[in-house]
């Protein structure tokens, strides 16, 4: 199925979720493979997988790689937001991954081997299909697929094919947000082997380009909450255990290919460090200038120590991220990092509406009571997480390290790391509200707490001059001030205190961060807050403040937050640059980011946007089909976003332009 333009992709995305479309696929499947539906109803992953591999349609075209989906085989959604161990599949034949001993008494091993058998069936079907085709490179591709069964990949191109094939299987079987992992690491041996054989960098670059195009295909199917949110994230660079920063020729080619692709995904997370060369940062900023939202910078100097303090030792150097930014150990983790969302703003709202406010006499009492309501939200999250159950996924269990040795499915704790993450939202608004309350109610005594409640209740009606005052003064959050960072850290450490002893059924620990995809979703039902935010307006996006005078102040602020213990599940400094500003100041921005690494920001992403262009795109979407923006942790075509996301980006771009 060819998707020719953005409208087609958007329509396919909408259709994917429509009841009519789902029914159409179910009806097709009844004809093609009623056994698949029967096994699905019985919750039998292996049975489903067997019939899928036997019966799904194989479509091969003239492209460099083989990739196909059959949407009539719809799985129930299962584990998501994790990265498989691609190196297992690149460095071994599939049949090497089998259990070879007597498995007659072990159900997990039997299931495991049966899934490998089914993959073997599918691979042989692909080979047969290739044999019947008249494509020029069919013999090469037949060799690739034959090799898949019995040996490691023999070239860089072949390795990329294996990545695509594994990825395809995972997407096809209901896994969502499948990450691409540290591509420059697991592909490195194949790259240098090809270079030794005399294959040119240009040829390898072309192989990468076509790989990215292939991975981008069906992105409407892969999109999760919003179009573009596919989770296909490539991790590049990073420091080694010896302290050396590695970003080599392959890393450069991958970054260059993503930069020139002008597509929303796959996207790049670049691991950075104080020891990285300036030239690498220059390349990263050059990529950002293209406006496709890549790369997000992930600070190894902060994240690796945080992971190690959490209990992840040498593997910390091998970290990747979930779909957006949450660190995990790719290939070894079952960490689903976005299992609940805690709203700091909701906790404050609940407090204002449930407490007898006239009994609260000082700010210290107020803040302590507020934490009681935060605790309530924490309990809610913990309970939600404890109740989550996922169907077994034997396919993922094959490609996540630990499951083979433990003979345990990934959903039952088979992975080496089984920690669980939740996100938080609204910390910026809450810090501002608390500081405003402290000032207006308890210090200047200009207002009473009942006024704060009325502001929420009446959406600032009757408090218009207060609203103007709060808007004019701008946000505290993001300013380089000890009181602001202390309060932020106090709130975060409180959450740690209440979550550090929690253990999941798979003996995993909880982690959280102050970035979240939910800054619009969670804000919709939230009343006005005492930071100048009106009812239903979005919360602050991650760590951001478009009214701060300088980017360096925001960076300093981000560097003063304590990300240790379990507070490392994504903490993104979100900056907006106008294209003209970035173009004129590329090297300075590069140095500023290096400065930021030293200061200790956790992660950083950019939106390179102009409000004028965004407004024009909103009015004339047909002319701006390829305009890309950064949304929470992924890139999307602006014209495909819901209106409230578009409006928020316009607002932030305008605020940024006023200050700059």
């Amino acid at each position, binding site marked *: 199925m060819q998707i020719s333009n953005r409208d087609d992709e958007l329509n396919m995305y909408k259709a994917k979720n429509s009841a009519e479309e789902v029914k159409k696929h179910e009806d097709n499947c009844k004809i093609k493979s009623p056994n698949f539906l029967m096994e699905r109803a019985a919750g039998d992953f292996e049975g489903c997988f067997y019939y899928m591999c036997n019966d799904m349609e194989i479509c091969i075209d003239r492209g460099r790689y083989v990739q196909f989906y059959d949407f009539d085989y719809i799985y129930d959604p299962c584990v998501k937001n994790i990265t498989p161990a691609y190196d297992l599949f690149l460095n071994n034949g599939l049949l090497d991954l089998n259990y070879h001993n007597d498995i007659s008494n072990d159900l997990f091993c039997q299931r495991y081997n049966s899934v490998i058998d089914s993959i073997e069936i599918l691979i042989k079907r692909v080979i047969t299909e290739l044999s019947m085709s008249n494509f020029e490179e069919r013999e090469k591709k037949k060799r690739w697929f034959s090799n898949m069964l019995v040996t490691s990949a023999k070239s860089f191109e072949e390795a990329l094919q294996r990545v695509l094939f594994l990825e395809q299987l995972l997407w096809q079987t209901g896994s969502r947000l499948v990450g691409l992992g540290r591509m420059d690491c697991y592909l490195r041996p194949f790259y240098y082997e090809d270079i030794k054989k005399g294959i040119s960098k240009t040829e390898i670059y072309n192989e990468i380009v076509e790989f990215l195009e292939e991975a981008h295909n069906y992105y409407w199917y892969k999109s999760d909450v919003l179009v573009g949110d596919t989770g296909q994230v490539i991790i590049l660079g990073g420091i080694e255990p010896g302290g050396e920063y590695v970003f080599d020729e392959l890393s450069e080619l991958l970054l260059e290919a993503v930069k020139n692709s002008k597509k929303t995904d796959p996207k790049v997370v670049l691991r950075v460090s104080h020891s990285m060369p300036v030239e690498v940062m220059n390349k990263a900023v050059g990529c950002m200038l293209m406006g496709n939202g890549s790369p997000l910078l992930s600070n190894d100097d902060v994240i690796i120590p945080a992971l190690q303090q959490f209990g992840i030792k040498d593997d910390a150097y091998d970290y990747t991220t979930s779909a957006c930014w949450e660190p995990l150990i790719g290939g070894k983790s079952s960490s689903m990092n976005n299992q609940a969302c805690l709203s700091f703003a909701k906790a404050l709202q609940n407090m204002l509406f449930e407490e*007898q406010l*006239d009994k609260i006499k000082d700010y210290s009492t107020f803040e302590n009571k507020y934490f009681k309501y935060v605790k309530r939200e924490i*309990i809610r999250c913990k309970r939600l997480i404890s109740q989550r159950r996922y169907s077994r996924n034997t396919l993922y269990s094959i490609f996540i390290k630990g499951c083979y040795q433990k003979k345990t499915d990934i959903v039952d704790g088979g992975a080496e790391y089984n920690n669980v993450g939740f996100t938080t939202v609204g910390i910026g608004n809450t810090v501002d509200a608390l500081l405003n309350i402290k000032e207006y109610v308890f210090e200047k005594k200009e207002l009473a707490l*009942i006024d704060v409640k009325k502001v929420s209740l009446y959406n600032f009606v009757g408090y218009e001059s207060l609203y103007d005052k709060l808007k004019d003064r701008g946000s505290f959050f993001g300013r380089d001030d000890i009181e602001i960072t202390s309060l932020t850290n106090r709130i975060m450490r409180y959450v740690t205190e209440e979550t550090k*002893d929690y253990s999941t059924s798979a003996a995993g620990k909880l982690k959280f961060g102050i970035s979240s995809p939910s800054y619009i979703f969670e804000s919709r039902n939230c009343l006005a807050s005492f930071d100048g935010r009106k009812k239903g307006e979005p919360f602050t996006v991650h760590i951001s403040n478009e009214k701060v005078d300088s980017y360096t102040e925001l960076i300093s602020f981000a560097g003063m937050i304590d990300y240790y213990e379990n507070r490392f599940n994504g903490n993104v400094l979100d900056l907006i640059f106008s294209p003209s500003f970035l173009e004129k100041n590329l090297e300075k921005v590069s140095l500023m980011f290096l400065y930021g690494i030293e200061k200790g920001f956790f992660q950083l992403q950019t939106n390179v946007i102009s409000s004028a262009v965004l407004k024009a795109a909103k009015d004339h979407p047909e002319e701006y089909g390829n305009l890309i923006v950064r949304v929470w942790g992924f890139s999307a075509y602006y014209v495909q976003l819901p209106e409230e996301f578009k409006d928020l980006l316009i607002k932030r771009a305008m605020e940024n332009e006023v200050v700059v």
Partner: protein
Amino acid sequence: MDNNVNACNKQNIEQKHDRELFICAVSWLDLLEQGADLYDYFVDHGCKSVAIYGAGDLGKTLLREFRKHEGITVSFFLDLKGKGQAIDGIPVYSSYDYATLPRVDIVVVTAFTYFSEISNYLLKIRPETPVVSLKKIIEVRSDEVWENEYANQQS
């Protein structure tokens, strides 16, 4: 056509109410079976006097809970249609009389499907008095009991 739409909306609201009522009732029962109740919520919030909005089955059940303990008084019921009655000695007033009634520490709304409208009305009259849905109180207590049980299991 408008009548059909109205009838449909009304049916949806009633179905939503029934569903929420069922979930609430099950959660409340679950709490009771674990030896807990809603009383601690009110103690935590420093409540000595309570008004209950809704003089139906849920309101009466809540009154019985309060009666198991000392220290918190149910001062009155509020109800759209309840003027002049009493439930187990507790007067029932019309919600239109709220402004003239004695202040309480909290109003608990048992008609939670219409909580938004009811709380907005009551808060306009007395913004200083918290108005909380029974559904929320049950959720909060249920979570607290779960947390205690979980902590015991861990230790």
